[in-house]
């Protein structure tokens, strides 16, 4: 059976669309929402409630819809919890209900409603407590019943986009008020953006018979839109939900691109909007009246019925009862009549306003002083009981009940930014106080329910803002003359709920009843926030748009307080739900965070390197030859470095250039040691502490010129060190004249390490004298290497003589290739970070972040010699604290497994008694552990309480998976303690 009227509406009858609902093929038209298409097919019953499994139908018309939340599509592109009143119908759409097992019609879980008396609000706080530890079992039963939609089963096939938008005036809402405001700003030269949540412009006008300039409103709409489209300074964003209003006039909005262009490559676009002035014309939402059994399919808000008829040409019922406490529903009664339905109006008031009365032919049955106090029907309403003030009850049949309890302005975007609300007695609801600077709510959102006022407010605020922004007036919009206007919610007499037997639902989605609110109050949940939380009122996906103000009204009645004394709960973004993918935009997959590769990366890939992630970098970890595992490859790389020459890509180390007369002062303050006497061309190792005196980074800094230094940081610490120094310079030491530049990416660095490194570098060709006399350990020379300008540094992290050659990044790959070619003669072997770790560990060098963890001081490392007594530096004062001086603090040691082949797990704890039962006192832990090829045995580094005095003692390494391994404490430096090899 179709409920589509033969004419009218703003649907496109030339474009029929096929869709399915619960597998059943149906048709609708372009311009339909999924909800209107379902109603056109006489489908009201679309879901079951979560807790009580009661049949539920489409009730609303927009974001307030509490029931019609459907699953759309299949597989990876399925969409959960889609509100049918906001989904535009598309060809082939496949929608289904979620709650209902095995089917919507026959739901076995509906037996749950039998237990409804046992399940008042908060019942779960009072039960499911025993036996101890059983909650998880109950949860297993509860979770599948709760919850709603289904998650896609694969990655999102669609694309999203993010855009920034700065404008002078942002207008939210494309109804008469917003359109008038935009039209008044044409030609002002101000950049104006108008966003509208729906695909079609017009808002309330689309469901109204109001005439503008003596014509149907459509004509004015088209004219105005044409002018707006033509205007250079106006940007129109239809199908765009502004979902949040944040500090400093920042707004987030989501454009559903495909509502306007079905084949667009982008599904949704996230607009980040910053405006100077904000006009909020977001409209209002009709609220129902709560009454017993008010949840049957076929019960809708009055405006939803009217819009269904006027906009979608769908008659949602033939025998209608309209129940109201205000004038606005009379327009609904009128269009029901015109569409051929039988109508009875039940009005709780003694009489209606004149304009309302004038809407209806005289013979219409209007029962004043009456309330609908119950309904019947199962999967569709079949009748209502009406109680009159004189105590008479009347039963009437119907297949549609239209409810109007008044209108609530959509104050959300005003309230997100902490705008205040005030109670409007005439409307019995909250309206914005318009207290936010540069922000103005107008039209229905400000409580103005007649089009004439909305239009006037729009043009007035536009003019006011334009003047404030220093613009010459644009078009002086001549406001259209309004006639045939339907009455607004005038002469409203607050009526929140009708008493009676039977569950009266305030929040449909969570089955919150009026008696639940009573119970919450009775149980002492007095604050409105407690009522909300205990009663889960407003926690549905409509976020209280449907029931919150009614809930507040009911609370007020029950505790005899005025709504302003009670206040509202906090309005939190989002206005309507926002797709995660849209907020992420393209920042996913490869673009999530940049992967940083060195200039020689391709060479490493070709050489079959295995990589590891260090900070954002990909670093070659080792280069396995055929048949080699990691241990074998690392052993080979280490020994080649010791015996001949190893080549390491060192480009990832952080590099910061420091310029300025106060460069030295900065170094003195951030490093623990002395920098005064460092000569030009010389390098020094430095240790950097945080405020607590704990090691935060280390590295070598070279002096390049009188006021020019080059600081190396750890790979992972580069950004942290730069911002650390910037923070101090900008906030505490603005008097220092010193400039920091990150040059990490500008250079490619190749480290040649091993006894043949000098010969290899010579063979490549350099104008730098490489002899130890001319170029001693811990110095830096600039010159040319293979004809390319280079900085060469003699430092060593491997314990072997080494030359670190830095060339401009673009030259580095070629130089690397050259090194490897020339190196063949010297047995040059590329080595990765794993071998680098082993080599440095044999030397007892720390790696910040691996060996230190933010709780290790230089004293713990045995580096007190690095702390200058002559000067102060960051963290030094903290080192003086008694606890940091204690001799039993964890101290840096070497660890030798008693079994020389047993490599300790990194992260093992050190204990004294392997037989002890927890809690077991821990003596320390293992930070680095390897089989050390140059030493010929397994070896580890770590920390032991008071460890420096305990060399030679035995402990046990303890690991959850590897078990217990006996070790001996040693000194940390194992290889070439005198350092002759690196100095040469």
């Amino acid at each position: 059976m179709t409920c589509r009227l033969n004419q009218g509406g703003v649907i496109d009858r030339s474009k029929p669309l096929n869709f399915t609902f619960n597998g059943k093929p149906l048709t609708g038209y372009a311009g339909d929402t999924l909800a209107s298409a379902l109603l056109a097919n006489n489908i009201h019953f679309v879901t079951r409630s979560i807790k009580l499994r009661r049949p539920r139908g489409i009730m609303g018309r927009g974001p307030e819809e509490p029931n019609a939340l459907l699953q759309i599509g299949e597989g990876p592109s399925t969409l959960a919890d889609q509100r049918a009143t906001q989904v535009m119908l598309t060809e082939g759409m496949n929608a289904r209900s979620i709650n209902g097992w095995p089917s919507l019609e026959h739901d076995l879980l509906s037996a749950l409603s039998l237990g409804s008396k046992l399940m008042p609000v908060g019942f779960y706080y009072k039960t499911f407590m025993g036996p101890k530890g059983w909650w998880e079992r109950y949860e297993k039963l509860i979770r599948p019943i709760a919850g709603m939609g289904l998650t896609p089963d694969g990655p999102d096939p669609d694309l999203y986009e993010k855009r920034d938008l700065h404008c002078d005036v942002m207008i939210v809402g494309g109804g008469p008020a917003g359109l008038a405001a935009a039209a008044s700003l044409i030609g002002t030269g101000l950049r104006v953006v108008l966003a509208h949540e729906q695909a079609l412009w017009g808002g309330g006008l689309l469901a109204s018979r109001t005439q503008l300039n003596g014509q149907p409103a459509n004509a004015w709409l088209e004219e105005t839109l044409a002018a707006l489209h033509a205007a250079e300074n106006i940007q129109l964003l239809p199908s765009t939900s502004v979902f949040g209003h944040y500090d400093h006039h920042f707004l987030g909005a989501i454009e559903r691109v495909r509502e306007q262009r079905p084949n667009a490559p982008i599904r949704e676009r996230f607009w980040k909007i910053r405006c100077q002035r904000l006009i909020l014309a977001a409209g209002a939402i009709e609220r129902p009246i709560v009454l017993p059994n008010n949840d049957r399919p076929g019960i809708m808000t009055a405006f939803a019925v009217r819009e269904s008829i006027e906009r979608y040409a769908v008659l949602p019922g033939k025998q209608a009862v309209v129940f109201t406490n205000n004038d606005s529903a009379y327009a609904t009664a009128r269009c029901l009549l015109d569409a051929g339905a039988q109508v009875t109006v039940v009005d709780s008031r003694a009489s209606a306003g004149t304009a309302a009365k004038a809407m209806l032919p005289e013979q219409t049955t209007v029962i004043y002083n009456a309330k609908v106090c119950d309904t019947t029907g199962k999967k569709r309403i079949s009748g209502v009981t009406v109680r009159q003030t004189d105590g008479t009850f009347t039963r009437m049949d119907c297949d549609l009940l239209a409810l109007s309890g008044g209108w609530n302005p959509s104050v959300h975007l005003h309230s997100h930014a902490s705008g205040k609300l005030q109670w409007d007695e005439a409307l019995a609801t909250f309206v914005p106080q318009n207290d936010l600077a540069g922000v103005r709510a107008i039209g229905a959102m400000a409580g103005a329910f007649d089009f004439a006022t909305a239009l006037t407010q729009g043009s007035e605020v536009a003019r006011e803002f334009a003047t404030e922004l220093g613009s010459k007036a644009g078009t002086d919009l001549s406001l259209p003359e309004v006639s045939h206007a339907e009455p607004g919610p005038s002469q409203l007499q607050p009526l929140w709920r009708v008493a009676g037997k039977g569950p009266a639902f305030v929040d449909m989605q969570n089955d919150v009843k009026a008696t639940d609110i009573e119970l919450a109050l009775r149980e002492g949940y007095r604050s409105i926030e407690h009522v909300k939380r205990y009663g889960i009122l407003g926690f549905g996906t409509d976020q209280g748009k449907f029931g919150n103000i009614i809930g507040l009204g009911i609370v007020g009645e029950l505790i005899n307080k005025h709504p302003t004394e009670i206040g509202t709960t906090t309005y939190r973004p989002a206005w309507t739900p926002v797709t995660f993918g849209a907020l992420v935009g393209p920042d996913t997959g490869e673009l999530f965070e940049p992967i940083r590769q060195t200039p020689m990366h391709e060479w490493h890939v070709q050489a079959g390197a295995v990589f590891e992630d260090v900070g954002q970098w990909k670093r070659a970890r080792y280069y396995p030859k055929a048949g080699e595992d990691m241990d074998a490859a690392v052993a080979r790389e280490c020994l080649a470095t010791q015996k001949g020459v190893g080549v390491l890509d060192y480009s990832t180390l952080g590099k910061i250039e420091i310029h300025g007369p106060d460069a030295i002062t900065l170094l003195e303050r951030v490093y623990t040691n002395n920098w005064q006497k460092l000569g030009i061309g010389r390098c020094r190792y430095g240790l950097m502490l945080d405020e607590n005196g704990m090691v935060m980074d280390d590295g070598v800094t070279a002096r390049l010129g009188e006021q020019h230094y080059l600081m190396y940081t750890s790979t992972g610490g580069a950004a942290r060190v730069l911002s650390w120094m910037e923070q101090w310079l900008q906030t505490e030491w603005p008097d220092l004249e010193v400039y920091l530049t990150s040059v990490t990416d500008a250079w490619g660095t190749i480290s040649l390490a091993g006894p043949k490194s000098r010969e290899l570098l010579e063979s490549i060709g350099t104008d730098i004298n490489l002899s130890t006399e001319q170029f001693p350990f811990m110095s830096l020379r600039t010159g040319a290497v293979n004809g390319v300008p280079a900085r060469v540094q003699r430092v060593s992290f491997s314990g072997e003589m080494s030359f670190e050659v830095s060339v401009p990044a673009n030259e580095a790959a070629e130089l690397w290739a050259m090194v490897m070619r020339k190196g063949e003669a010297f047995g040059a072997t590329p080595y990765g970070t794993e071998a680098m770790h082993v080599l440095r560990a044999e030397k007892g060098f720390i790696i910040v972040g691996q060996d230190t963890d933010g709780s290790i001081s230089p004293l713990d490392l045995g580096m007190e010699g690095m702390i200058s007594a002559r000067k102060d530096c960051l963290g030094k004062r903290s080192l003086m604290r008694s606890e940091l001086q204690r001799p039993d603090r964890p101290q840096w040691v070497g660890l030798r497994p008693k079994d020389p082949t047993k490599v300790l797990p990194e992260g093992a704890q050190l204990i004294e008694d392997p037989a002890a039962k927890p809690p077991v006192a821990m003596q320390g832990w293992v930070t680095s552990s390897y089989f050390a090829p140059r030493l010929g045995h397994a070896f580890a580094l770590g920390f032991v309480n008071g460890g420096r005095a305990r060399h030679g003692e035995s402990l046990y390494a303890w690991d959850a998976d590897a078990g217990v391994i006996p070790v001996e404490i040693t000194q940390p430096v194992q290889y070439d303690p005198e350092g002759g090899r690196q100095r040469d």
Partner: protein
Amino acid sequence: MQNYSIFNLARHALGGHRGWKPAWREATPKPRYKVIIVGGGGHGLATAYYLAKVHGIRDVAVLEKGWIGGGNTGRNTTIVRSNYLWDASAALYEKSLQLWEGLSQDINYNVMFSQRGVLNLGHNLQDMRDIRRRVNANQLNGVDGEVLDTAGVKRLVPFINTSPDIRYPVLGASWQPRAGIARHDAVAWGYARAADSLGVDIIENCEVTGVRRDNGKVTGVETTRGVIEADRVGVVVAGHAGVLAEMAGFRLPIESHPLQALVSEPLKPILDTVVMSNAIHVYVSQSDKGELVIGAGVDSYTGYGQRGSFQTMEHFLSALIELYPIFSRLRMLRHWGGIVDTAPDASPIISSTPVDGLFFNVGWGTGGFKATPGSGWVFAHTLATGTPHEINAPFSLERFHSGALVDEHGAAAVAH
């Protein structure tokens, strides 16, 4: 106190549930109490409960400026775990976890503590070293935990992106099976009800505006409902520790930052455990109602606005989609923020103060919800005896002078 049970529920159902009494009385302040607790969050209410129950001190008022549980208790993402690295922390959080395990029964209010386990993911070799170190420490301290590899993670969360080629591949995780989540509001209400039944006055809409002192000793507090005297005052105000310290004339080494969280629309069960990633800063669990509860690290700027900046959220949502590509089409329902007070070592301060009789229990930062019962337990002891319980002795204010920090920050980079 009316007993909560299925039998009583059935009995009251017969009377239309008209027989239920308020969970806690609407108390009016008396002029004087033995102990005043400032802050009606979970920690303050738990403190009051254990003061009355364990120490027999019932002349106690909890003063809350708004509605109880309305601070971070009602804003947090409810992760409960005890797998901390250092002994001092492990003792505190494990004491809490043990109390959690019997809490619903103890206070006769279902706090829905769901021991569904918590995963802390590792994305690089160093993460995995840290995880191993922490799990080893946990086991030696008698705290449950194990190290999982990629396949182990996949078994628990089949849809997590374990491709080795992603920016931050999942190399493994620490797994604490006894950890989980709880129902935050129920914790506040349940403790309030239990404390009230032992005689504690819970006074809402009562903001403390000054701390009265005489000769270096606390004598009471000034409030929006008048002066209230007390022998001892315990301050448990989460995001406002600095404000209260200023009233009492001293300063704290604390920074206040916004911390944000959000929920998706409700979904049928998809995620059965809690998954946290510190390296890419996002964590997620699914509530019993079906919402995905998602959070991250703090906003870097300090402030008292309970909002935070949008780009922080954009960033952690990118991380979310990176790890869980199937969440991309789901939608954010609601987002919010709370203010968290963080000490330099990211551990709480449960301590005496320069003012005699005035004690602070603050600085819980991003991760205090899990400690609610234990925090109340040790703070009650501290207030009752005037000296710390052995568990909170390491968390004194003194440690910032002595340097005996309990640095969970650096140590395991853990949050929440």
